[in-house]
């Protein structure tokens, strides 16, 4: 699992910095573009709605969001769907503070490592959007420990949910293995922007679900993430002068390189994006 220091590197630059190039909801994960005319804002709402349906959530559902970011999904669930019992957990202090500042109705947030989270109750549904990449580290994966770590994650999600629950999981996945310059760029992103994180391979996820969750639906959206990261890059570059002035040249240049590498990785098929609808097995 990425530790708190790793998480701070990835999400602790400054909330105002991320506000300058993410959409207005501050969703930092792949959007779903339903038409060529969709704005990033609309595409992020599309994503939240797609995942809400995947987790079979309605206004009466109690929902846990594992790795809730800056609260975009909690905000969508409570304000747009009418959910009255939503809980988010994050390991990022900056994200936690932002969610408190947003004062999202009917939503609670805890700043806690998921391995230490003890809800003391069971939810109707669980969601996790762009957090699974932090569950196992590159070192753990290299040592072959990642499958057991993923199984432990899915077991906890099972314990936190009621019989009949659904789980909407969205994660980047490793696809075609890069070589040469592409490998070096993707490696730089991993070590510099997302230390402690790694994109799981699809087979590793599928191997880890049993005996707790059944895959009912699986969608991949590589082209949607290429477009999402392209839009983030465009907005970052539109704010270049302001970012250089407020956050320094290195921050702008690192994030320009990182987002450029993401666009390349998704366009070239080195990485993809998977969305799962999982159904809880057993009582």
């Amino acid at each position, binding site marked *: 699992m990425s530790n708190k220091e790793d998480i701070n590197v990835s999400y602790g630059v400054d909330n105002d910095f991320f506000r300058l190039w993410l959409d207005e909801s501050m969703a930092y994960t792949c959007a779903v573009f339903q038409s060529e005319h969709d704005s990033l804002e609309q595409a992020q709402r599309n994503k939240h709605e797609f995942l809400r349906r995947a987790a079979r959530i309605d206004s009466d559902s109690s929902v846990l969001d594992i790795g809730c970011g800056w609260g975009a999904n909690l905000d969508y669930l409570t304000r747009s769907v009418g959910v009255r019992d939503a809980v988010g957990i994050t390991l990022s202090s900056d994200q936690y503070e932002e969610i408190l500042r947003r004062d999202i109705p009917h939503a609670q947030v805890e700043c806690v490592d998921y391995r230490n989270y003890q809800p003391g109750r069971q939810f109707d549904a669980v969601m996790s959007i762009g957090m699974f990449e932090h569950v196992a580290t*590159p*070192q753990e*994966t*290299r*040592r*072959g420990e990642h499958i057991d770590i993923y199984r432990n994650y899915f077991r906890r999600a099972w314990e936190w949910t009621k019989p009949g629950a659904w789980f909407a999981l969205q994660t980047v996945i490793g696809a*075609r*293995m*890069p*070589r*040469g310059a592409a*490998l*070096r760029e*993707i*490696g730089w992103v*991993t*070590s510099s922007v997302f230390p402690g994180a*790694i994109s799981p*391979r699809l*087979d590793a996820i599928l191997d880890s679900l049993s005996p707790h969750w059944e895959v009912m639906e699986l969608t991949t959206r590589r082209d949607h993430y290429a477009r999402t990261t392209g839009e983030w890059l465009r907005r970052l570059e539109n704010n270049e002068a302001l970012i250089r002035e407020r956050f320094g040249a290195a921050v702008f240049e690192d994030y320009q390189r990182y987002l450029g590498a993401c666009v390349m990785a998704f366009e070239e098929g080195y990485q993809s994006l998977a969305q799962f609808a999982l159904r809880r097995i057993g009582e």
Partner: protein
Amino acid sequence: MEQNAIVLDDAGMLELLKRAFEFAKPDHQALSARITLQSSIDELGMESVAALEMAGFIEEELDIQFHDNELTTIRGMDSLARLIRKHIDGKGGVK
């Protein structure tokens, strides 16, 4: 076995792995002298990218191509050597 093919013995394998390491970690060339067939990726202070860079170097050197899922199984020099032997055996040896 194809004509002119040679078998990569342990000494030849170690030499190949050392050159691949020096390619992947140009700032740590002195470490290559410590590589043995028993060295793990972690012992050599390598990150995943460097291990993949080694594999890419070897692919070019030997004109072979590893499968993506094989690359995720590299834990150390012994597993990389096994992978190399599997592929060069499949080609009938190294020319």
